[in-house]
């Protein structure tokens, strides 16, 4: 996505250390208005600290953060009016009911959304009279999403959006976030679900050990992975593994005991493989060609897969 106007969220050279250890180091990115921007990374990579600096909950040690031109720390009072936040490990009063929590948070904002349709969208309409402490994990999470959106914000920061949700609720929530974005809201999303990032995000910053390891569209990240294409087949006759390993673009070759061979590589690998097999008069049974997923790209980029 190309941006012609100044980004709505600007993070430039952000650095934050706890007890002398940098948890966020030289992180820079910009989020355009109306974009869903994902921050992806392993546990403890500095994702939450980064978005907390954007929300004004933490003061950066160095670097510049601007949200709609506001400094989240200095202009905190003004930022809160246009920000919706869903935090990790942050609750509402245990004996407050769902309805009361929605009404309370609506009253905080000058121009809130009607909370009733929002509660219906998040399937909370049967739980309006239930106290927060009696809600299940997924219901609590849905309430947090509603509270993040009820103020009719210009920027929404969602930290671990669908943690604790069942697959159905997860898909509903993704649709809701897409609709919210389509109404012009800018979304900053912290996640460790690849499927979620791939489905929702226009662009993704992969953070590893406090630094940005890659910043691209989901498709761009996948194509960067060493083995972007995966081919599996059962050869009708013997195949020389050395010949396979020498095919152009091959990243790995695996020969299983049941005879199935798995190759990872690029598009050119597939063409070369088929040519090679034809030359040896070998047929590829049960041939499957698939793209690598964001999962593979993620493991590749963060080095989390190296063991």
């Amino acid at each position, binding site marked *: 996505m190309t941006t012609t106007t100044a980004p709505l969220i600007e993070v430039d050279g952000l650095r934050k250390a706890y007890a002398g250890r940098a948890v966020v180091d030289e992180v820079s990115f910009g989020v355009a208005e109306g974009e869903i921007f994902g921050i992806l990374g392993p546990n403890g990579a500095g994702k939450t600290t980064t978005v907390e600096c954007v*929300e*004004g*909950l933490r003061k950066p040690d160095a670097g510049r953060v601007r949200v709609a031109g506001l400094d989240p720390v200095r*202009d905190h*009072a*003004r930022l*809160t*009016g246009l*920000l919706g*936040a869903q*935090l990790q*490990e*942050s*609750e*509402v*009063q*245990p*004996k*407050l009911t769902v309805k*009361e929590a929605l*009404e*309370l*948070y609506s*009253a*905080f*904002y*000058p121009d809130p959304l009607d909370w009733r349709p929002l509660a219906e969208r998040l399937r909370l309409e049967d739980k309006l009279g239930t106290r927060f402490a009696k809600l299940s994990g997924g219901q609590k999470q849905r309430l947090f999403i509603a*509270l993040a959106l009820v*103020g009719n914000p210009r920027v929404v920061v969602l930290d671990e959006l669908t943690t604790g949700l069942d697959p159905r609720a997860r898909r509903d929530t993704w649709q809701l976030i897409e609709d919210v974005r389509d109404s012009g809201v800018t979304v900053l999303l912290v996640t460790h679900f690849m499927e979620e990032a791939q489905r929702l995000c226009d662009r993704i910053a992969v953070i590893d050990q406090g630094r940005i390891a890659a910043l691209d569209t989901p498709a761009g990240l996948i194509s960067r992975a060493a083995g972007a294409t995966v081919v599996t087949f059962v050869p009708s006759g013997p195949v020389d593994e050395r010949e396979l390993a020498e095919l152009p673009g091959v990243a790995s070759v695996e020969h299983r005991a049941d005879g199935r061979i798995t190759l990872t590589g690029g598009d050119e690998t597939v063409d070369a493989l088929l040519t090679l097999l034809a030359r040896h008069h070998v047929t590829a049974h049960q041939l499957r060609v698939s793209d690598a997923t964001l999962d593979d790209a993620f493991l590749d980029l963060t080095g989390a897969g190296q063991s």
Partner: protein
Amino acid sequence: MSTATTDTTPTDTTPTAVSARAAQGPRARSAVLRSEFRLFRREPGALFGVLVFPPGLLAILGSVPAFRDTDPDLGGLRLIDAYVPVTVLLPMIVAGLQAMPPVLAGYRERGILRRMSTTPVRPSALLGAQMGINGAAAFCSALISLAVGRLAFDVTLPRQAVGYLLALVLTVVVALSLGALVSARARTSKIANAIGSAVFFPSMFCAGVWLPVQSMPTTLADIVQCTPFGAAAQALSQAAAGDWPAWSHLGVLAAWAVVLTGAAARWFRWE
């Protein structure tokens, strides 16, 4: 108390934005107050401790015949007369030390204050609402005890009403600031409960729950009068008898209020 933080308006804001937010502040804070009041009503322990227990204790003690005999040690007063100021102080101690600290520490522990700090309402609105509600409940309880004493046991109402009210207001402020300090230092609601109880019993002793201050040995009474609730008990007794409460007692109360409020403000953490 949150006016200063929420209404700070940067100079480059448009007039409409300023007025929108200025109108928003009171509405948001009253919504916080309403919801905290609702939550207070859902805490049977706090309701009982603050509103039922102190007047109830007075009614039970008053039903003991010995409490209604005049006592030469108390200058011709009956024991029940000496216990009215005690049961007036009791709800303030319960509200400040038993009811409020676990709630506030829990709000911090559960990230409720932190969540609220991402909204246009400052988390101090929650602190203010809690102090207001607990203070008001303690005040109501004190009035109930005075009424029970007057109606059931013929205890005369405070003769120096202005002095009595002044002492009462100072005491509420001291009790709440003591509670705020406990909430400030306790990381979890469990710790707040423990610290609250540890301070609760000495406070009750000083207020004269077991032995009215007037009946204590001189040295002990001198020490107790330097504590917030000891001074409060003395000031209330004097005002009840028709005298203006001694400035030394009011001074002790005011000094505690300043010190405790300052300490709570200095140490309170929102997360």
